[in-house]
């Protein structure tokens, strides 16, 4: 039964292990897919950061080369899964796009870079990107973006106690809010005025506040703010700010339709710029003044203004301003009906227009070629990204597959293990059960063995004691004493050793000799006996179950020799053979067959179990102690079937 279960379990285990190796192979092949995907690695002689920096420096002169480098680096870093390099590439792409006024794309790239930097917790990199995004957003007036990133920038600098920089960003926030949230805007500007120590920023904030007031139709407040800003700017000789405030004032008056004030402001602006030597700005303002006069049909005054500026026009290189000037002059001449002059100016005007066109076209061309390169690169990057997305999906899928496979392997492993453990437990259990059974069996057999252990035939005991009686009756003290001593000695030995499973051969021989002597005394007339022990036998080397030989001798006397007419002979010989001691008990009694024939029914009722007992004992001894004792019984004389020969081989 146990063997059968073992067999089934083994088959189970084997089939399982085959399944296991298969799934293992699957796992291996899926690993190979991963490897082949990432095999397109290239070695970088320059560090990626160096490459990126190099690309940035050469962008203006050699745009295509710069783009190529960035593209390469990007591919490389994507393949190498170097996220930081990838982010740097995006940042650079953003920068390039911003330079080519592709602000939307620039912002897209910057935000990508930003995303990675944020994930990688590279705070140092964040500020530059915020600034870049804000700058591009300002360029295309994306107010929400501006506010978002400038707030970040503001917090960044505020935390670092960099007041001017934080105020700068607050100012930008204020301007962005102008379109959507005037109160936020006002708050921002006020903050700048309170916090900043920079006059310029304060002026800008004032202008901002003015704009807020203007939008709220608080014209007086706006006017005073613009004027104050203007004053400070003039005092600080900050021309751009001065001009800005002039412009705002002019706008304010135009909105209110206060032409006098408007012209006055424009005049002030002209004077200021004229004095400062800003010919372009001066020309610009003179054009504006003239236009204002033209609107009021004050052609004479307009003409005066323009004529005053003719010299300045020659000095300026700004074609736009020139164009504006000639356009105004042309309009003026046409109004006055001075066709000749108008025609003259028109040619001048168209010449300027041409130069503007030319300049613009040149710029456009340069931009276009660069843009083309960049947009191509950008497209490739997009493709790369899509590719990567796909890749990631694929990888994700493979991972999932792998996970499932791993799960399967794990359950298989679990099953294998639990089966193995179960099998092991069964094995151990069956071993213990077997051992227990065996022990039980052995102890049972030992018990049986004990019960089978030959005790002296009570007949012998009492008959022997009766013999002592005879000495007493004869008043033969010495004989009685000797007989009783020998009998006691025999009893002692038997009692002492009958509990053992094995005793030294020497002891058994001693018991036999005592027994034979005593029996011989009783049946002196029936038999003679000889007892020979081969001197070469090392008696200490052999062990024998106690009282194993005695029954054979008893049988020889009682069933063989006692029936014989005349004296019989009994010989007990111990001889050393090659690998055993041969014990031969031979008598010349009537033989087993005749002895049996002599037995009457009544005698047969007295059971003689001596030999049967010995056989059972030897069987158990063979089982328990793995010791075999060969016993053969045969007739001494095979023809007459007389006498008995018992041969015991003791190994």
């Amino acid at each position, binding site marked *: 039964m146990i063997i059968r279960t073992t067999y089934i379990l083994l088959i189970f285990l084997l089939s399982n292990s085959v399944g296991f190796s298969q799934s293992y192979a699957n796992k291996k092949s899926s690993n190979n897919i991963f490897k082949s995907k990432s095999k397109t690695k290239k070695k970088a002689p320059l560090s990626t950061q160096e490459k990126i920096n190099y690309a940035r420096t050469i962008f203006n002169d050699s745009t295509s080369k710069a783009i190529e480098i960035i593209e390469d680096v990007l591919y490389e870093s994507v393949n190498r899964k170097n996220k930081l390099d990838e982010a740097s590439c995006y940042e650079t792409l953003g920068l390039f796009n911003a330079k080519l006024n592709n602000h939307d794309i620039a912002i897209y790239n910057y935000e990508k870079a930003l995303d990675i930097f944020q994930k990688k917790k590279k705070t140092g990199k964040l500020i530059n990107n915020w600034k870049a995004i804000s700058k591009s957003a300002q360029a295309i007036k994306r107010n929400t973006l501006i506010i978002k990133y400038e707030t970040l920038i503001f917090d960044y600098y505020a935390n670092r106690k960099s007041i001017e920089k934080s105020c700068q960003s607050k100012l930008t926030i204020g301007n962005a809010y102008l379109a959507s949230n005037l109160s936020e805007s006002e708050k921002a500007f006020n903050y700048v005025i309170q916090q900043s120590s920079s006059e310029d920023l304060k002026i800008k904030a004032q202008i901002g506040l003015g704009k807020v007031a203007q939008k709220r139709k608080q014209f007086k407040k706006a006017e005073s703010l613009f004027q104050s800003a203007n004053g400070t700017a003039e005092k600080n000789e900050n021309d751009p700010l001065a001009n800005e405030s002039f412009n705002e004032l002019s706008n304010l008056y135009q909105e209110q339709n206060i032409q006098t004030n408007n012209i006055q402001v424009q005049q002030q602006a002209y004077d200021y710029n004229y004095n400062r030597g800003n010919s372009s700005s001066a020309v610009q303002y003179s054009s504006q003044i003239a236009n204002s006069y033209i609107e009021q049909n004050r052609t004479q005054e307009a003409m005066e203004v323009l004529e005053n500026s003719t010299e300045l026009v020659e000095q300026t290189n700004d074609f736009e301003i020139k164009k504006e000037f000639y356009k105004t002059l042309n309009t003026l001449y046409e109004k006055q009906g001075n066709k000749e002059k108008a025609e003259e100016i028109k040619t001048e005007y168209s010449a300027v227009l041409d130069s503007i066109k030319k300049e613009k076209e040149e710029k456009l061309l340069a931009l276009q070629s660069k843009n083309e390169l960049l947009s191509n690169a950008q497209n490739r990057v997009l493709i790369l990204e899509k590719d990567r997305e796909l890749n990631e999906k694929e990888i994700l899928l493979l991972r999932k597959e792998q996970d499932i496979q791993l799960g399967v392997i794990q359950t298989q492993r679990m099953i294998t293990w639990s089966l193995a453990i179960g099998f092991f437990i069964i094995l151990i259990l069956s071993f213990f059960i077997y051992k227990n059974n065996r022990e039980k069996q052995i102890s049972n057999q030992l018990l049986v063995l004990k019960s089978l252990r030959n005790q002296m035939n*009570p*007949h012998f*005991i*009492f*008959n022997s*004691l*009766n*013999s*002592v*009686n*005879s000495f007493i*009756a*004869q008043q033969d003290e010495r004989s009685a004493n000797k007989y009783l001593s020998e009998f006691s000695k025999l009893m002692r030995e038997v009692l002492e050793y009958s509990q053992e499973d094995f005793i030294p051969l020497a002891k058994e021989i001693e018991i036999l000799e005592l027994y034979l002597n005593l029996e011989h*005394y*009783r*049946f*002196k*007339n029936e038999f003679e006996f000889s007892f020979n022990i081969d001197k070469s036998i090392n008696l200490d080397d052999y062990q024998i179950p106690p009282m194993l030989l005695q029954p054979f001798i008893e049988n020889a006397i*009682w069933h063989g020799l*006692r*029936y014989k007419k005349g004296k019989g002979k009994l010989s007990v010989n111990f001889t050393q053979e090659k690998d055993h001691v041969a014990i031969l008990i031979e008598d010349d009694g009537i033989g087993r067959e005749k002895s049996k024939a*002599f037995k*009457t*029914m*009544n*005698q047969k*009722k*007295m059971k003689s179990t001596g030999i049967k007992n010995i056989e059972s004992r030897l069987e158990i001894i063979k089982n328990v102690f793995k010791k075999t004792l060969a016993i053969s019984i045969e007739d001494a004389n095979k023809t007459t079937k007389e006498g008995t020969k018992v041969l015991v081989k003791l190994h």
Partner: protein
Amino acid sequence: MLKSVIIEDEEVSRNILTNYLTKYCPEVSNEGEASNINDGKKLISNIKPDIVFLDIEMPFGNGFDLLDQLDTIDFEVVFITAYSHYAIKAINLSASYYILKPIDIDELINAVQKIVKNKQEEESFSSTKILAENIKSISDKNKKIVLPQLDGFKVAQIGNIIRVEASDNYSIVYLNDGKKYVLSKTLKYFDELLSELGFLRSHKSHLINLDHIVQYKKGKMGQVIMSDESLALVSSSAKKELMKYFT
């Protein structure tokens, strides 16, 4: 003076007995010795002894064989045995005499005196005869048991005993003729004698002849009704044995 012979195979043992008889039993004379039953038979027919001292264990047939082979028995046997459970049972059944080896002189004297006394009273009863009958009878039921009474003996066929009941240290034997006999023997004594002759110890104090069971009544304590309509108890441990007998 009673004549005696000794039939015993061991010379030493014969010598002892002869010695003791001359010393301690003056009312008995030793008329001869034999070492086996064939010689013994001749000796008996020659001497016609009153007492035969007979060893049970001997080569060429034991003591019972001798009794079996004799046609008439007009002597009393005193068995001499070293150890024989089987033989002693048979001897007890007929209340014959026996002496265990090593011979106890008092026992020897006692046995001899009893025989002398019986002879003097001229009792017709001979336990040896009954023993010989028992040996010869093939059926157990026809075997006889001697029930010693204060005033003599009652011999009963084993088949006629319905049951034996214990009463303290006495036992009451119920026979199928309606008579009962009180004996100064324990029930255990009877159990040992009769258990192999169709009797069952159904209860601590009941030994029943299985042939005389008429009815069995189930219950907490089982009961059997015997052929004389008397009741005997059956303990739970004996129930199995009882059932085995009837199935």
